[in-house]
């Protein structure tokens, strides 16, 4: 509450809300479209976004806007007609969407570790957290592809065209997960203390000096 009126805090929160609004409306869209997997994605991402706000009862307790933006990027690409047109016209566009998907899942993994530290007894050290983010991204990508495949087989959708398409997704998930695992490790170190205080996220992973008794 000490920072509630600081202009910087208002600016940070507003930028974050804008990014989240995109995520929110995309989620509503995929739910109305009964797109089960993407609805699950949107709801999970929104829950992770909302949780700190609800638990602190403070709308300014928003996540950093750049993380929110990464979180919402793949769902925007998924529903956008423009993206679909580009996928046909530009050779690397599908790789780009796969990568944005991986970055988003790495972000979910990161938020998960962060919120596990905020709300549960779980304590990880830095290297374990980095490993967890990488592993989480790859694993979720696996579950996701299995989900799309099952939906193809059981509900007659047309998500997956070939084995190599799936492998391409996995490769990008591995690349995105690896990169983002280390990026988030560095991100926590690099973010200035003043901004951490503005965001209300003093320690992301590590509770300083915490030792198991």
């Amino acid at each position, binding site marked *: 509450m000490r920072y509630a009126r600081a202009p910087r805090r208002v600016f940070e929160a507003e930028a974050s809300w804008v990014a989240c609004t995109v995520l929110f409306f995309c989620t509503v869209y995929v739910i109305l479209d009964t797109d089960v997997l993407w609805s699950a994605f949107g709801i999970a991402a929104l829950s992770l976004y909302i949780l700190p706000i609800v638990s602190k009862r403070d709308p300014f307790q928003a996540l950093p806007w750049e993380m929110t933006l990464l979180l919402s990027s793949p769902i925007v690409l998924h529903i956008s007609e423009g993206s679909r047109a580009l996928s046909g016209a530009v050779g690397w566009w599908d790789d780009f969407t796969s990568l944005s998907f991986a970055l988003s899942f790495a972000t979910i993994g990161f938020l998960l570790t962060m919120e596990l530290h905020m709300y*549960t*007894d779980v304590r990880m*050290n830095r290297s374990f957290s980095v490993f967890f983010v990488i592993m989480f991204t*790859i694993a979720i*990508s696996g579950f996701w592809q299995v989900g799309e*495949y099952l939906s193809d087989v059981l509900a007659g959708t047309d998500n997956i065209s070939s084995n190599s398409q799936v492998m391409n997704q*996995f490769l990008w998930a591995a690349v995105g997960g690896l990169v983002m695992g280390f990026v988030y490790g560095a991100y926590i170190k690099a973010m200035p203390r003043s901004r951490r205080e503005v965001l209300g996220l003093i320690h992301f992973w590590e509770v300083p000096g915490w*030792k198991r008794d």
Partner: protein
Amino acid sequence: MEARLKLISRAMQAGMAAVALAGAVTGNLTWVPVAVISLVVSEIPPLLRRDLRLVLPVELNLWIVLALFLHVLGGFSGFYDNLPGWDHLTHAMSSSLIAALGFVTVVALDKYVGSIYLPGSFIAFFIVMFTMAMGVSWEVMEYVVDEVTGSNMQYSLSDTMVDLLFDAFAGFIVAAYGAYYLRHTSPDHFVESLQLVEAKAKIEAAIRR
């Protein structure tokens, strides 16, 4: 009980040795290297126990030998080609093995690393994710090897997907069994029975020497 499990392990090792020998004698060399490597790998836990005093749970030891044995048996007898689902069986065996080794590792981390605390429910979640991540990495490895060497490890999309489904299944089973195991034996007791501290002391002594 333990003696009987050991006997079963020995019998399966003898089977693998027989496959290697029979293949060498009849000039049918395709599966000989695999049988020999599997035999060597199946001797690793006993060696760890003898030289490092590192003790894996007996069930896990048996599981390791069984997975290797089924793989060698399937290759030698042509089950991989003739018995539908054999590859999925061995795949499920090996992914449950990975899951179990992940479980042992993560429980040991929880106990010995002071800056880490992982409650049982998180460990279960971790195992499921870990197994899936390893399964995906495995499939990617197969794909890359196929692309580079022109081999044919990955048959089709549905084959890959069923493999991943079995990975997920094995992950859930091991996570559930691990949670049960930790609830019914004390985690401290479980980790201490692995004798990691003794193994670490042995390794350090070996390095110093």
